[in-house]
């Protein structure tokens, strides 16, 4: 054990750790396994229980058969994939761009940073209501267009809310997640400094080449991590597609909730099967993301 001297005092070094790692991990594991693992196990059990009455079990795969054999499930799956994929891609593009702009020194940088981070504190639901009032066919923009004589009625305004392309939902997620990804990317950018990039530029690389070959590989782990979080959230969240989504297909979480609250108790196992599908896909994605980080040679 070595000790440090600081202003004449001797600061003892931390004692050598003798507690095994798994003991230190236990509290976190109990919470994760107990709450999530227990919830998943309970959900799996309920998805296999054909008897709707509480306290009785009747093993059956019928709910899984109904869910997997229903074209509506796959339409919902496709929609959720589209919402999460498009939201993530656009958020990454804009988030990284914003971070690159904010890292330099310029007049009003503090104000710009503050403005970018402003909506981090706005709840998703509040943002969704704002999008609704702004973009619906009788929203603020439609009213301005009507007053300017550009449209003759609500139906002439493009359908951005409750539309088959889920434009309103994607816009809401992008609006909300760009600051998050910008913040993550900015932290990574500030961690690596500008020396490597400056060296590349002095050796003749243009800005695009320097970004692609020098900066991007260094911030990629942080951006990938952030993107995985955004994707998993957008894929599994209920409230935005419930408020801004079309009647068909419904996003996976909305479909699961509809089955869960169906007055016919026999449909509850289908809700559990749907919820497990959502969890499985998100889990697979996080694993793939982690694997991608390792393959990228980053520890």
């Amino acid at each position, binding site marked *: 054990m070595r000790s440090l001297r600081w202003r004449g005092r001797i600061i003892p070094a931390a004692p050598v750790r003798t507690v095994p790692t798994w003991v230190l991990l236990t509290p976190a594991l109990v919470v994760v396994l107990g709450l999530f*693992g227990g919830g998943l196990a309970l959900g799996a059990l309920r998805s296999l229980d054909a008897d709707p009455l509480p*306290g009785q079990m009747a093993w059956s795969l019928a709910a899984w058969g109904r869910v997997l054999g229903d074209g509506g499930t796959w339409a919902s799956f496709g929609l959720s994939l589209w919402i999460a994929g498009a939201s993530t891609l656009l958020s990454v593009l804009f988030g990284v761009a914003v971070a690159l702009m904010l890292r330099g020194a310029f007049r009003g940088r503090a104000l710009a940073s503050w403005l970018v981070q402003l909506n981090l504190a706005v709840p998703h639901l509040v943002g969704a209501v704002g999008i609704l009032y702004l973009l619906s066919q*009788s929203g603020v923009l439609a009213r301005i267009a009507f007053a300017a004589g550009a449209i003759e009625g609500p*139906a002439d305004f493009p359908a951005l809310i409750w539309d088959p392309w889920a434009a309103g939902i994607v816009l809401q997620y992008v609006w909300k997640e760009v600051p998050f990804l910008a913040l993550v990317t900015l932290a990574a950018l500030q961690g690596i400094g500008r020396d490597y990039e400056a060296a590349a530029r002095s050796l003749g690389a243009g800005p695009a080449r320097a970004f692609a070959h020098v900066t991007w590989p260094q911030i990629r782990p942080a951006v990938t991590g952030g993107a995985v979080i955004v994707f998993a959230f957008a894929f599994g969240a209920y409230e935005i597609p419930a408020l801004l989504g079309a*009647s068909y297909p419904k996003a996976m979480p909305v479909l699961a909730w509809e089955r869960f*609250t169906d*007055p*016919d108790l026999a449909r509850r196992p289908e809700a559990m099967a749907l919820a497990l599908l959502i969890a499985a896909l998100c889990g697979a994605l996080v694993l793939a993301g982690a694997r991608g980080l390792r393959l990228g040679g980053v520890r």
Partner: protein
Amino acid sequence: MTYRPLLAAMLAAPILAPAFAIGAAAQDAPTDWDSVVEEARGGEVNFFLWGGADNINAYVSDYVGGLLEEEYGITLNAVPLTDTADAVNLVLSEREAGVTEGGAVDLVWINGENFRTMKQGDLVWCGWTDVLPNDDLIDWENPAIANDFGVPVEGCEAPWSTAQFAFGYDSARTEEPPRSIPDLVEWVKANPGRFTYPAPPDFNGSAFVRHVFYHAAGGVDGLIGPFDQATYDAAAEEAWDILNEMEPHLWREGATYPTSITQLQQMFANREVDLIFDYNPSQFGVFVEDGTFPETTRSYGLDDGTIGNTNYLAIPANAANRAAAMVAVNVMLSGETQLEKARPGVWGAPPAIDVSRLPQDLQDGFGALPQHPSVVPAAELAETALPELQGEWVSAIDAGWQENVGR
């Protein structure tokens, strides 16, 4: 691997928990009202109800809550829901987790398939209604009161209000609204993009689809009673044909439907559509008064009649505060609170009690209620009232719509 026993225990816990719930049964109902009141005094009631209308929330929290506080020292906690099924699910989940008493829900505003679910799952407390002094005001001989969507009530809930479906329109925009399903189809074709309905399972959208279904079945008579697949199949084909014939002429060419009655109300207020409907027609008057709907809003029933129902108050079998919930129901069934509820500016909900059994001054009060010009009189609607169907029918029609029209 050392973690296996721990993992096994975690997996087993949720499996074993429901086992403890078996054998939970409703306790016997009390027989003595005075002891109920004594037990209820100073307590609280967690009342779960659909919370989508500000005026209803105000009536429940302020007026009924005020009376309970004043007379019994009981605190009424109104818990707003977007869907009554949420409360049923909460009770069911508690039951699955072994919570057979001390549950979170003391009282729930309910009817139809949700009541059927609670009764089917033994989740509702029965046999307490005839202990209430104001039970004398209820006409249990009336089949529309004694049956909830075709399911016998049998003392498992107390009626609170009646309701009957009506259509609404803006008389300044629309001169002659359609008064039958065939007329509606023609009207929709002549006014493309100006009509739509909320997708079932929305409560009001589901009721609208049932009107089309009744028409397709040649009237409701053949649909009364338990679910019958052959009868359903025959009527369903015709019903989906009618709705699919309308679809390309609906709002957004029928590519999508609103997902809630609230969304349709906003669209009517914003003039995106020209027709509206509501199971609670007094809402039209409320929306006119608060400026959401134009003053020229008018409402009406269909020539072949519109569907009516009775809605109820139920106490879950595992409710924590049964006595206080009973006192709350008794207060809500009194002539005074039912009269207040019927006032157009308050809620405008028709009473579920038999008004002729009230003292003369209260009867006069009901007789003197002003009629809002935007709200079709309940008596006029009631001349051609159609009954609701049993829950299996409602579920089958909702699922059939999603399968054949909604996608």
